[in-house]
């Protein structure tokens, strides 16, 4: 009777064990993943490896350059031997992850008959215009004509002439004994600075990369330039405000609509591929500066010191109002006509001398100009005084400030260079190219940092929802920035710039998508806390029986040892 009972017990015990183990297995294999899956947040997959690839940025900037030798610069022998193409590469390593490589792709040829005819014209401007008419040049490319030392086209003492477009004339003596290699080298030495003036310098590109490189890596001037200019954006709002703090004494009239049409609009038309611009103006009454100017007895005028200027803007800005129509950054240009009791008002710089323009600008914000009213004969003064503002004086200052704020810097050139004035448009083609070069690099740097930090953020915080829209924007940004990089390498500035703009807008859209914030406040520990009433009673018996089974198993291992 005892034996069957024991075997029945044994069967029961092993059945119990089997059931306990299988329940534990089902819970672990089926239950836990199911729970995990159903309470998980949706995270679309992102191109993490591509984004990691963007962390190391190797910029290859290719400038297509055409060198055209004028008559009498080369001997017949040399002409036959000049190579048709050449390549110069310079690599600058900025830090472990960033490097810039300049590629100058040279094409050499002789002048054609038409070009020779154009170069034969009397004045530089005529020659330049005639040459421009002969062939359109692509954005970012440079055409350089090499003229003999004896050329009369360039004035005496002038070695280099840079026209309004993308054409430069360079005087260069080449000795007849030089071989073809030497010619290329000599010419390169002569034109290197011209090319850098017309496209970009390492410093300018480095400053554009300021997002990625610690401060101190580049020169103060470039750093200041990059800090002053507005960040690259798809559009800008330009607002001109006339501040009239004393409408009782001044009846101000400014003809802003025609002045802006004549001065600012041509300049903006030139920049239409860079960004969208919109322009408007307003008049603000009783808008005061934040500081009381100091009276100077000797000149009986009022003085604003340099250290006062930072305090001027804040009270005025409260009145300016934001643009209701768009989210683009606003460039403010203020024309301040001081009160009758505070006129004339002048700005003094550090060493106590008056600033001739009576204007200043604030980085990434805008500019302020103080316009003093000439009252004429004080005896016949009748308030309010009717004043027509001289818009030429005003627009001249504002246009200069606008150029600075958009990051168009004045090229610094040696004495023997002659630069053509930009004329009506206020901007030459090569200045535009310079802007595009630095902007495209800046855009790429911004996109890479945005994407990297987005990827980092999403990686660190596991319960942010990544929906398909965000994911597609990220994919688009990555592919656009890759296009921009390859277009730059191919020397197509225009399309590289457009691609970088798209990349910026996509990456910003992804980064600032409101859906990223939705589940941020439901962290994992709370999720566990909510499910504890389920998990605890379920887990305790499973663990207890597993422990018991393990104990018995150990026992049964030991027992045979003992008996044997």
């Amino acid at each position, binding site marked *: 009777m005892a034996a069957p009972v024991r075997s029945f017990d044994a069967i029961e015990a092993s059945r119990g064990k089997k059931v306990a183990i299988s329940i534990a297995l089902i819970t672990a294999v089926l239950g836990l993943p199911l729970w995990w899956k159903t309470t998980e947040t949706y995270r679309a997959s992102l191109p993490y490896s591509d984004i990691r690839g963007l962390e190391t940025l190797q910029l290859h900037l290719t400038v297509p350059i055409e060198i055209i030798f004028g008559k009498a610069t080369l001997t017949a022998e040399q002409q036959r031997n000049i190579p048709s193409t050449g390549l110069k590469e310079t690599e600058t390593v900025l830090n472990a992850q960033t490097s810039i490589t300049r590629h100058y792709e040279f094409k050499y040829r002789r002048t054609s008959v038409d070009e020779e005819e154009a170069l034969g014209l009397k004045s530089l401007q005529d020659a330049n215009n005639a040459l421009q008419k002969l062939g359109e040049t692509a954005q970012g490319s440079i055409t350089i004509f090499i003229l003999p030392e004896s050329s009369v086209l360039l004035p005496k003492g002038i070695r280099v002439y840079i026209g309004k477009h993308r054409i430069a004339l360079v005087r260069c003596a080449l000795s007849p004994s030089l071989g073809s290699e030497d010619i290329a080298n000599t010419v390169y030495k002569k034109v290197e600075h011209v090319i850098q003036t017309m496209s970009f310098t390492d410093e300018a590109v480095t400053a554009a990369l300021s997002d990625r490189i610690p401060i101190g890596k580049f020169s103060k001037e470039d750093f200041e330039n990059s800090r002053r200019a507005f960040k690259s954006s798809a559009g800008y709002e330009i607002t001109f405000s006339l501040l009239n703090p004393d409408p009782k004494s001044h009846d101000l009239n400014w003809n802003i609509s025609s002045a802006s049409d004549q001065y600012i609009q041509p300049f903006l038309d030139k920049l239409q591929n860079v960004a969208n611009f919109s322009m408007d103006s*307003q008049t603000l009454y009783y808008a005061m500066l934040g500081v009381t100017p100091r009276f100077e007895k000797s000149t009986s005028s009022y003085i604003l010191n340099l250290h006062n200027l930072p305090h001027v803007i804040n009270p005025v800005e409260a009145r300016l109002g934001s643009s209701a129509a768009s989210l683009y950054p606003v460039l403010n240009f203020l024309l301040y006509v001081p009160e009758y009791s505070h006129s004339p008002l002048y700005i003094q710089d550090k060493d106590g001398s008056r600033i001739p323009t009576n204007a200043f600008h604030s980085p990434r914000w805008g500019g302020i100009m103080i316009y003093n009213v000439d009252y004429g004969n004080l005896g016949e003064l009748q308030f309010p005084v009717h004043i027509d503002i001289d818009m030429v004086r005003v627009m001249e200052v504002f246009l200069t400030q606008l150029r600075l704020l958009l990051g168009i810097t004045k090229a610094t050139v040696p004495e023997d260079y002659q630069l053509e004035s930009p004329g009506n448009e206020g901007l030459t083609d090569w200045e535009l190219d310079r802007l595009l070069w630095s902007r495209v690099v800046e855009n790429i740097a911004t996109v890479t940092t945005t994407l990297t930090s987005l990827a980092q953020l999403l990686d660190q915080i596991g319960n942010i929802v990544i929906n398909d829209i965000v994911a597609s924007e990220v994919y688009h940004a990555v592919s656009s920035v890759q296009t921009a990089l390859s277009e730059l390498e191919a020397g197509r500035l225009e399309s590289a710039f457009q691609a970088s703009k798209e990349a910026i807008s996509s990456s910003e859209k992804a980064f600032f998508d409101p859906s990223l914030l939705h589940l941020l406040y439901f962290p994992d520990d709370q999720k566990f806390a909510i499910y504890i*009433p389920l998990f605890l*009673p*379920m887990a305790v018996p499973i663990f207890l029986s597993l422990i018991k089974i393990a104990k018995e198993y150990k026992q049964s291992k030991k027992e045979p040892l003992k008996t044997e």
Partner: protein
Amino acid sequence: MAGAVLVAAALWASVWAGQCAEPPGSDVFREELLLTPLRSGDIAATFQFRTRLDADLRKEKVSHYRIFPKVLGQLISKYSIQELHLSFTQGFWRTKAWGPPLLQAPTGAELWVWFQDSVTDVNKSWKELSNILSGIFCASLNFIDSTNTVTPTASFKPLGVANITDHHLLRYATLPREIVCTENLTPWKKLLPCGSKAGLASLLRAERLYHSSYHSQSVHIRPICQNADCSSVSWELRQALTVVFDMYSSGQGKRDWSIFKMFSRTVTESCPLASQSKIYVDVSGSGKEVDLFELNPPTSLERQVVVHGDRRVYAEYDLSQQGTFSTSRNLNVALKWKGRTAESAGQPQSPLFHAERYVSGYGLQSGVINTMVFNNHPYRAYPVMLLETVPWYLRLYVHTLTITTRGKENKPSYIHYEPAKDRQRPHLLEMLIQLPPNSITKISIQFERALLKWTEYPPDPNHGFYISPSVLSVLIPSVINQKTDELEESTLFSTLFPSSDGSSYFMRLYTEPLLVNLPTPDFSMPYNVICLTCTVVAVGYGSFYNLLTRTFQVEDRKGGGLAKTIANLIRRLRGVPPL
């Protein structure tokens, strides 16, 4: 810099030609203040600032602004707005005690906009517009969405020059819960060319304005005729602010008022940009002796105007005249009552038309919205257009709609009803009801309260849910015939609502907002439910697990306990062999 000088030199000649080409803008700014002593002893001060932009924002691209605020101009152009009316109100205009208002606004925020017919997606523009206005006026207008927006068919007509009547271009929304305070007043004042630095706006000090029984500020933008034959169109921005000071809380219980007593400052100058700057005091009493008061300083200018079908007399102070100001260069208009105290003035006579509304019923399941409309005209009947907007969570039973006048059913001549869709749109009920003379009409409709999802409750849900006021638009027969050929030049408020003939005048009244309680759950409920469910599951699972894993053993113990004895007893009863 050198480059710019070159540019300048190149263009020197051409700019001078350009400067003479365009005449300077002829925008106009006017400011007015009207003081109306009310029968109750309180006083109403109504400011009106009008800015006219002499350019058509619909046709030409205007980007240069002088007096007209740039931000609103941009808004009109960008969203192709035909008309915009926005008001923020704190308190309720008590028509019965204070008489008919010049321009009433519902408690909270109200926004109604007519779009131009070039707008294709009106809902999208409306959404964006309300968000931007929310930013401009620091208000919660961003809470305007499809659940509180309606498209009335008849209640709101364009007030400016317009040839559109397609009501699909109209959107109307109210936020009765909106609280109005300084942060709404500051941006409103910023729209004025002189700000609060000079002119009548310098009286607008927040700490006085909000210490009052009623405060309403509004912005009305509409196109108006520039001249008599309407050959060109201007845009008018009308900013109005009405405030009622209470006799007891602000006036120390006396009916004597002065500008200084109301605003704790006096007027010192007019806005130099204003072409008209005037203060009016309503001196038209009912003829009884108790209603007489004298003005200090006295003014010889008086003006008779017909307002709301009644002839009113206004004393006028012109701030552009130097003589208006006293020797100390300020103006403090004071009202000194000749009669005795306010109590002796007697009951204020009830206005020709007013309305009330309340919720009745008990419990949290159903209720009734009742609206009482009073026609106190002795012998004329007139129709009223009633607009009700009820949120979807009050489910209206339209079949219970009853309209009774003097105990008899009153059939509306026009009914427009749009049922609500849950979480999408509110109920819209518009009715044209004929009011017999000297009558009270009661409109009631039953509703059922819906249960919301637990995330849909606002903070503090036990406070209740606000139901926006009903809007009553009425054309009241006038006692006195009035001239209608008043152009935009005319003063005061009679011009905002155009009237077709002088025999009647238009008025829009709002009833009180309602506060309705909805069934409110315990908000820790979801966690409790999870806990309970988990416990039930765990208990069930536990016993099941126990049953499966327990090792069963045959018990061979001979002796039995009490349980066995009882079991055997039962077995014997059943006729089964015992254990």
